[in-house]
């Protein structure tokens, strides 16, 4: 009898139970890690954030005052990055999905996109410094930083747009071509509108990546805390500002506030992207 009980204890049932428990535990641990990060930043940062924190310029290297120029700097950099990476990325995706013949050049392009996605951001930053800042003479500026960011997010916009374009049904394209539409007319008027939600989601997610990126812009955008007057002037992006505040021990409070604002911006953007995606998925789901 007791032998029977003993075998039961070590029967697969128990292992199964223990394994389940461990798997639950790993999932819970992951969620807890996430909550502790977001919780800490929000909890400590929210008290710092008020109108003057958002709209004032920093004083005493950022130990007092606000972070307005850094927010403006970030928005300028991201605007340049998206306005360049968006069209180029969508164009590349249209070429790769609709035009590209199956040959060496096309393989090289796909390979190039993959390579670019794999290059560490600090290497892109170094390149941006050598090429944009020094060689092209753009100096530390919004233009240099924005373009360097563009190099970083380009592969993501290409991929997201490709995915979106590939989901457009061939029936629609045939319908358009059979009416005598040219290839470009078909793409412009049928394919791109249908792929737009997916493309938008991809580009917005790219924005999220660009907003939080630091290593790429440290040596391209500069670190000026003055409000820029043109894209040829330097700015200090919010993540870089946070890095300086934290690593130089300037002010914990200001750092928490900056971190919370940065986190808020990124999460808001990602939330928007995901919501757009879900909305359109749900809508197209109804149709079938």
């Amino acid at each position, binding site marked *: 009898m007791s032998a029977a009980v003993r075998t039961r204890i070590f029967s697969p049932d128990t292992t199964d139970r223990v394994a389940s428990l461990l798997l639950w535990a790993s999932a819970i641990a992951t969620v807890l890690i996430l909550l502790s990060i977001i919780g800490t930043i929000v909890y400590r940062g929210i008290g710092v954030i008020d109108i003057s924190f958002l709209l004032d310029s920093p004083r005493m290297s950022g130990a007092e005052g606000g972070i307005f120029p850094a927010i403006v700097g970030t928005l300028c950099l991201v605007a340049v990055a998206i306005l360049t990476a968006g069209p180029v990325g969508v164009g590349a995706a249209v070429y790769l999905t609709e035009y590209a013949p199956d040959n060496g050049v096309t393989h090289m392009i796909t390979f190039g996109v993959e390579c670019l996605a794999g290059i560490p951001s600090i290497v892109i930053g170094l390149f941006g410094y050598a090429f944009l800042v020094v060689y092209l003479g753009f100096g530390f500026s919004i233009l240099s930083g924005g373009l360097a960011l563009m190099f970083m997010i380009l592969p993501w916009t290409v991929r997201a747009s490709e995915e979106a374009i590939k989901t457009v049904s061939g*029936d629609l394209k*045939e*319908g*358009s*071509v059979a*009416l*005598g*539409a*040219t290839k470009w007319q078909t793409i412009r008027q049928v394919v791109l509108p249908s792929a737009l939600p997916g493309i938008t989601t991809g580009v917005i997610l790219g924005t999220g990546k660009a907003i939080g990126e630091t290593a790429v812009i440290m040596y391209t955008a500069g670190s000026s805390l003055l409000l820029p007057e043109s894209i040829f002037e330097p700015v200090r992006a919010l993540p870089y500002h946070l890095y300086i505040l934290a690593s130089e021990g300037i002010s914990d409070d200001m750092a928490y506030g900056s971190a919370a604002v940065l986190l808020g911006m990124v999460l808001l953007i990602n939330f928007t992207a995901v919501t757009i995606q879900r909305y359109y998925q749900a809508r197209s789901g109804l149709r079938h």
Partner: protein
Amino acid sequence: MGTEDIEIESRNLNLWYGSAQALKDVSIPIEKNRVTALIGPSGCGKSTFIRCINRMNDLIKGCRITGKVLFEGRDVYEKDVDVVVLRKRIGMVFQKPNPFPMSIYDNIAYGPRIHGTQAKRELDEVVEDSLKAAALWDEVGGILDKPALDLSGGQQQRLCIARTLAVKPDVILFDEPCSALDPISTARIEDLINVLKHDYTIIIVTHNMQQAARVSDHTAFFLLGEMIEFGETKQIFERPVEKSTENYITGRFG
């Protein structure tokens, strides 16, 4: 039949998808303002054949063609043929209704717009005429700005026909236009085809014998990429020459 009545004619048409031959030496004359039906078991090359006529097969990678398809006496595969003009003159309606995700109005206006018609009044007119010709005006005339995708399957298919009519083609190719529709919608489209044939040359692929018998003047029977028999529909259905045609028509094929 006199040669001057032949609008389209395929001559010794062969087609390969990669290394697989899908059409073998197909020659068919198609008369003007008549309905020609293509019948045959699944996979025998009916769709492939009609897609040769408006060169939709150009879109398929690895597709190779020999032989000729004459349209008004000229080979559509000649180098200097403008496929855009060709497709404008030879319209096509697909098996599955494929309206664009736009309003009903924009669907119909799509063709005229890409071909350069911009004036609102002109477009309004084309939209109304096309919808009337496709027997859809009574149902959608008041809801032109509604999404086309909200229509029923049968309405969508008539919308696709109207969309094709809007570019004023000479020929319309129908690839199993009713296979996704209920019997009532099917009957309406058959009626429509009977009216349209006064103004257009029509080629229709169908799996439905009765439909071929009801709507067509001529019928071609395909089997495994070959055109087995071609003739007056009445003759094909009542006195087929070939044994395989008879077997198919009497339902002894899968």
